[in-house]
């Protein structure tokens, strides 16, 4: 106590004696300078951190902004209104193309020559007759009546309505003829050409015609693939992690296994595709392009991720809980199942969802097993030919049609949406488990 008082006194009246210097060093000018430098360093560090966050946010906004700007229009599609007289004879012949064309010509009485009619024919999507056919198949009583229907326009007209073509360019550079533009403008003026919500994008499979292409098939393929992946890798991964972390003895073998699991997590995904090609297709003779094989390959790929995340989560459970359980005579298995695993569950779920999200966005390994195919049908089983969302995006991005450019961006938006949904589920699951404990 007395020491403190003396020290204070020495500091208030600066003492010239060098013997007291060590005591007052904390109040010296040099110390104050260093303190200012330390605070300045801290401010700089915080500023750098904030700048990094701002930069990351800016890049994210730019990325999302550009995708939304490009892709938003794909959620609308151009449709043409037609007064179709369903002549029973033509319906019986299933000559719906002729019915639609007749209705269209009726709106342009001045067009009589073949060239002009060909221009008008090109206004309609080549899928329009199927729409009409489906309508009649659903309600055969329509035959013989006159119906007002909206059918899909051709993708070029769709793009024209959305303003993708520059009208000030000469016809040869524009990629769309003056005659078509004039016809479309006439329809627009009469209100017979309008935009509506693009349900095709969500329900249809792939198509060569952009206005008929959708990601329904790819979504179904992704879901089936993910189902196989999840069913295989989640139980296997958690079981492996529990065994390695809670039961296995530490020796050279477990060290070797651990190193290899860590290495596997870093193996480029295309290698897993090659493995799948050689083993599942080559050796076991499984079908090409099937979600079953895709899921198997993805399971191999996500397994190390799940094992590593689960082991970290298990390691984070305090040992006192294990001791408490063992101390009252719980068997090692009961200790794990009743106490350790439930406590580690939030972490395990997070790792699993990260693994699943990675599998959902993976393209490369699927190229090797033939899931990068043009598939029109929506897959219904694990062995049907299928493709997945990111592969669909990859294929659309390769297509020359303008309409595919916007559909590529729209598909990216949908993929992002699915990923956000997955992460949302993970957050909710984690909350539920944390509340229970």
């Amino acid at each position, binding site marked *: 106590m007395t020491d403190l008082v003396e020290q204070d006194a020495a500091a208030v009246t600066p003492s010239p004696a060098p013997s007291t210097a060590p005591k007052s060093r904390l109040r010296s000018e040099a110390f104050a300078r260093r303190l200012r430098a330390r605070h300045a360093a801290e401010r700089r560090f915080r500023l750098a951190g904030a700048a990094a966050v701002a930069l990351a946010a800016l890049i994210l906004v730019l990325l999302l902004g550009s995708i939304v700007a490009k892709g938003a229009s794909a959620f609308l599609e151009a449709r043409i209104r037609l007064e179709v007289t369903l002549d029973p004879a033509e319906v019986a012949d299933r000559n719906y193309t002729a019915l639609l064309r007749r209705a269209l010509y009726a709106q342009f009485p001045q067009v009589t020559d073949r060239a002009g009619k060909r221009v008008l024919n090109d206004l309609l999507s080549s899928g329009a007759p199927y729409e009409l056919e489906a309508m009649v198949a659903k309600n055969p009583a329509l035959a013989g009546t006159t119906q007002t229907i909206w059918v899909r326009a051709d993708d070029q007209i769709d793009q024209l309505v959305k303003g993708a073509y520059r009208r000030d360019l000469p016809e040869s550079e524009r990629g769309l003829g003056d005659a078509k533009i004039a016809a479309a403008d006439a329809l627009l003026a009469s209100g017979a050409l309008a935009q509506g919500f693009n349900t095709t994008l969500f329900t249809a499979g792939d198509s060569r015609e952009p206005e008929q292409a959708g990601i329904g098939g790819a979504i179904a393929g992704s879901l089936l693939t993910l189902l196989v992946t999840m069913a295989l890798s989640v139980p296997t991964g958690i079981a492996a992690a529990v065994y390695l972390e809670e039961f296995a*003895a*530490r020796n050279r073998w477990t060290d070797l296994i651990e190193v290899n699991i860590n290495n596997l997590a870093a193996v480029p995904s295309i290698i897993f595709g090659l493995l799948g090609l050689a083993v599942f297709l080559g050796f076991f003779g499984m079908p090409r392009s099937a979600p079953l094989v895709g899921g198997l390959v993805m399971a191999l790929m996500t397994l190390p991720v799940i094992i590593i995340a689960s082991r970290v989560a298990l390691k984070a459970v*305090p040992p*006192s*809980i*294990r*001791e*408490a*359980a*063992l*101390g*009252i*005579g*719980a*068997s090692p298995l*009961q200790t794990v199942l*009743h*106490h350790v695993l439930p*406590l580690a569950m939030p972490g395990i779920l997070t790792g699993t969802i990260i693994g699943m999200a990675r599998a959902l966005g993976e393209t490369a390994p699927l190229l090797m097993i033939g899931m990068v195919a043009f598939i029109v049908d929506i897959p219904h089983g694990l062995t049907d030919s299928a493709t997945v969302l990111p592969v669909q995006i990859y294929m659309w991005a390769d297509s020359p049609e303008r309409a595919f450019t916007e559909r590529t961006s729209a598909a990216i938006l949908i993929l992002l949406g699915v990923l956000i949904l997955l992460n949302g589920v993970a957050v909710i699951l984690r909350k539920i488990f944390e509340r229970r*404990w």
Partner: protein
Amino acid sequence: MSITSGIQNQLKLRPRADDRTGQRSGAAGLPNKMTARGVKVFYGAKQALRGIDLDIQENRVLALIGPSGCGKSTFLRCLNRMNDTIEGCRVEGQIALDGEDVYGKAVDAVQLRARVGMVFQKPNPFPKSIYDNVAYGPRIHGLASGRDELDEVVQTSLKRAGLWAEVKDRLREPGTSLSGGQQQRLCIARAIAVSPEVILMDEPCSALDPIATAHIEELIDELRANYTIVIVTHNMQQAARVSQRTAFFHLGEMVECDDTEEIFTNPRDERTQGYITGRYG
């Protein structure tokens, strides 16, 4: 110096159960619940215990004292084979419970730990309700048939642990919401819910305040009637207050074991003398 005189005062002030019954503590007439003969423990190449011989008498409290790292916790964890869970730990020698070698083939570690319960240094209730904490042991061992019986086991255990009055209206609340001292009593209730024969306590009060400590010490004194208790403690007043016999450990050896009163008033070994007078440790 002041410590020993304080302890001696306490020994004089506190009427001993043994004095009341007229029976001298450590009397040869009391049966040994557990015996240790030549117990050596190795952690890898490092030897932690160098041949311990110790008798643990039934319905007595045995205190293990000694400086940090002397092996008293290691010895305690040998008694219910908790050392089995530590990688690279090897136990030699013989430890018997009711004459049966606990490291023998006939003894299952799971059953042993039900018979020899343990309370740890830091209160470690499960992150479950108070009720489930206490009911867990009886549930996994199938000690209670039906809800009513289980309710009763939980209630008896909590009463014995002196916690019932404080928690009887909040049995569904998580055990982790209790205070430190209450958590430790919950852990004791959890340990006695499976009706063990021996209770091992590894510095049960080191994380608690003096009031909570006093609670636990009273509890230990009461529990002695039904259980054999071995307690590791760094607090010599506590050893003097709660135990009938005390063993002093030093550098992996058991220096001496005698009636608590003898150890604190008339230690035979000078190392014991040095430790209890605070010269080292």
